[in-house]
């Protein structure tokens, strides 16, 4: 641990793609056993830098030194040999195989040509206990929650001699609780001497565990900051202007009830009642699996209801369906943009306008008015600050924040009065977050009813007029005004609802 050289030294690294400079002249160092956060807005160059470190891309100019020795990784395998392991956001798990098989994936222990099951199980058990985690070794990986799949991937990454573990937004799709667990594991690893390069958009995680944070903006290295860190400073470095206030929350007087849910029962919901009034932002908080997402999905017709009533602006809805609810002015924005929001292989504007051609009057008698469609898509994209403005690029090539904005476009294309946002800012950068909060606030100002379902407590507290906290399918607490505090919400996550 006393070696003079840093574990990894990134020196003047630039990366040019045809037409784009993704990184220009980036230099910083990663020390042994430190948790080094890498932050920046989407498109700032974080992914490119990671890919250079793990051998997927080659730097156009500049170098990477490992232990003081300049190194060129031609292939990902070279980086692996150098002790650099990466867990990407898209998990690399074979759902049909067991936990143990997944951990040994690609390097199954063999005995006379056959899989040595005993050794494989032992290896998996050792790897997981080294992380302080417990998973059923024989269970099918696909049956486990995403947080467990992530542990499998980390366990696999740490096989052999790992010196730098790169985690690309590891908590992006985890709930509060799982995130905390993962952060404990990460700090444990760092204590064992593994350096961690931790990419995240979640500020409180950085504050909690990072020793240092490096900030990129527009492909350039801005600064490396030491702990303790000031959130305002980091945000300012990331977006290049002072972070006055990320959250927008205007004072409003709520109007009539727009959405009323009473006594809703389903496979995951128990007697849930909720009301949303015009000009109100209602937050729904809860741990992963508490049913908060299913509540919104039930209102929209994506989650089967067994009992209870849904009333939209005075109209009793017997059997909600997505198309029917959209027609009545209720819009649900899914949390998983890639699987439920966009058609990844098609141009982005098609995903923006899909399902809304009639209401947006960009079709006449079934025929598309393509000129008008394109104009409308562009004006909405401009309003939401969607970048880059090449709306005929396929959706899959846009960053998370911009994909989210494309999904949000559907609320601007139709006459909506109730908006259900399901984890609206998961995996998107600070700049895009501010845009989303502005949109939400504007909707409420315009007299719409807004529901925000979120695992991000600071977000819920920052933008909500009222908050429902859910636990095990029930409403555990209903908070308003000054009662909306982190303590109150977190207490309701676990304890029984106060009488």
């Amino acid at each position, binding site marked *: 641990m006393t070696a003079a050289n840093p574990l990894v030294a990134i020196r003047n690294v630039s990366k040019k793609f045809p037409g784009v400079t993704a990184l220009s002249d980036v230099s910083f160092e990663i020390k042994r056993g430190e948790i080094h956060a890498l932050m920046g807005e989407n498109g700032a160059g974080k992914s490119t830098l990671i890919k250079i470190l793990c051998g997927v891309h080659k730097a156009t100019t500049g170098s990477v030194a490992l232990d003081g020795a300049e190194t060129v990784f031609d292939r990902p395998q070279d980086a692996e040999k150098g002790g650099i392991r990466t867990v990407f956001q898209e998990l690399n798990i074979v759902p049909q195989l067991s936990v143990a098989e997944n951990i040994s994936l690609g390097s199954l222990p063999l005995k006379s040509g056959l899989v040595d099951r005993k050794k494989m199980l032992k290896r998996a058990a050792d790897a997981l206990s080294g992380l302080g985690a417990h998973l059923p070794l024989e269970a099918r990986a696909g049956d486990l929650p995403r947080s467990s799949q992530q542990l499998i991937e980390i366990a696999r990454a740490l096989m052999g001699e790992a010196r730098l573990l790169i985690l690309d937004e590891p908590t992006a799709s985890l709930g509060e609780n799982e995130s905390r667990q993962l952060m404990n594991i990460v700090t444990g690893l760092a204590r064992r001497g593994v350096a961690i390069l931790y990419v995240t958009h979640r500020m409180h995680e950085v504050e909690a565990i990072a020793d240092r944070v490096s900030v990129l903006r527009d492909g350039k290295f801005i600064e490396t900051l030491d702990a303790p860190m000031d959130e305002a400073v980091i945000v300012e470095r990331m977006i290049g202007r002072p972070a006055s206030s990320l959250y927008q929350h205007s004072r409003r007087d709520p109007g009539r009830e727009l959405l009323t849910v009473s006594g809703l029962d389903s496979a995951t919901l128990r007697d849930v009642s909720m009301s949303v009034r015009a000009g109100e932002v209602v937050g729904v908080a809860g741990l992963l699996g508490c049913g908060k997402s299913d509540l919104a999905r039930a209102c929209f017709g994506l989650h089967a209801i067994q009992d209870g009533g849904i009333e939209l602006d005075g109209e009793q809805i017997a059997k909600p369906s997505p198309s029917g609810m959209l027609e009545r002015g209720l819009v649900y924005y899914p949390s998983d943009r890639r*699987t439920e*929001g966009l058609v990844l292989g098609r141009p982005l504007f098609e995903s923006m306008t899909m399902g809304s051609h009639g209401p947006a009057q960009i079709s006449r008698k*079934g*025929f598309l008015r393509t000129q008008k469609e394109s104009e409308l898509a562009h004006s909405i994209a401009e309003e939401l600050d969607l970048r*880059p403005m090449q709306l005929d690029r396929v959706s899959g090539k846009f960053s998370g924040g911009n994909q989210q904005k494309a999904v949000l476009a559907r609320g601007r294309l139709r006459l909506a009065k109730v908006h259900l946002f399901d984890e609206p800012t998961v995996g998107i950068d600070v700049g895009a977050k501010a845009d989303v909060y502005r949109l939400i606030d504007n909707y409420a100002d315009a007299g719409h009813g807004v529901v925000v379902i979120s695992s991000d407590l600071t977000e819920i507290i920052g933008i909500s007029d009222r908050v429902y906290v859910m636990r095990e399918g029930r409403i555990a607490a209903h908070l308003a005004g000054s009662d909306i505090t982190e303590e109150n919400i977190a207490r309701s996550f676990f304890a029984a609802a106060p009488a």
Partner: protein
Amino acid sequence: MTTTLSPERTAGPATARRSMQFILTTGLLPALLILMCVVFAIVEPRFVDGPNLLNVARQSVFLLLIAMGQMIVLINAQLDLSVGATVALTSVVVASVTAASSGGPESVLLGLGAGLLLGVVIGLLNGCIVAFWKVPSFMATLGSTSVLTGLALIISKGAPIIGLPMIFSDVLATSSVLGIPVPVLLGVVIAVGMGVFMSRTVPGRNMYAVGGNRTAALVAGINVKKTVILAFVLCSVLASLAGILLTARVGSGEASLGASFVMLSIAAAVLGGTSLFGGEGVLWRVVLGVLFLGVLSNGMNLLHVSSYIQELVIGIVLIAAVAAERLKRVA
């Protein structure tokens, strides 16, 4: 990030690179089709004769209609294996209906009506089985293939149905308008119509969304079931139309017609760049795919290549085409 508003394409690369780019993005197919035509024209001058070219068009119409239908179903991330059996049953039904008619001009309309109605019914059945019972389309249409073939054999008792009125073949097979055979004219008009439908109408656009990401389409408020059923109906109606035209050309109703169209229609659609996984496919490219297969088969006939070897060549071409497309995407 601040300069991204100006599109990259204003950069203006060299023309050579641009034409290479054109071949890569537009696909090898147009280039190969032209190359093949040139080769056939050099080796066998009869290939470029007016009558021969018209013949290629005439022979390709049936496949064109069916391949367009198959493309629509494929774009919805489904598959229709029953197109061949639809052709067969349509042929038998249309022949029975017209043979029993007065033989006047109305028998043409009667035949067309019966055939197209049958197409609608078959499409509705296939579509509803897939949409409501959630049977994978591969199995659903494999099953309906068997049912339709069985029906065709029962109705025809396994023998050709003869006695079609002359006027039926006269109008739908041999007559011409402005020197263009009626079937070819029909094929062109329908191809244009389908092109407009897929690219310029809401149901057409919805099909790309449903095939590209079914859940996202549902969440966006698209009626996914209706869209899928419509695709199957269009496909079956086009197959039925092909069956009607084929019956008029053969002059009898045959339960054995059309079996080869299943493979060929998928081949033509995929040659034209239609994705087997849905959400991707452009009509004019499928037209090129059909022409490619038509020219290939015509050229080989002119060169007296045996039909056994032709089978082999078409199979290899198909695999090579798909492989080229895949490799291009990886690169």
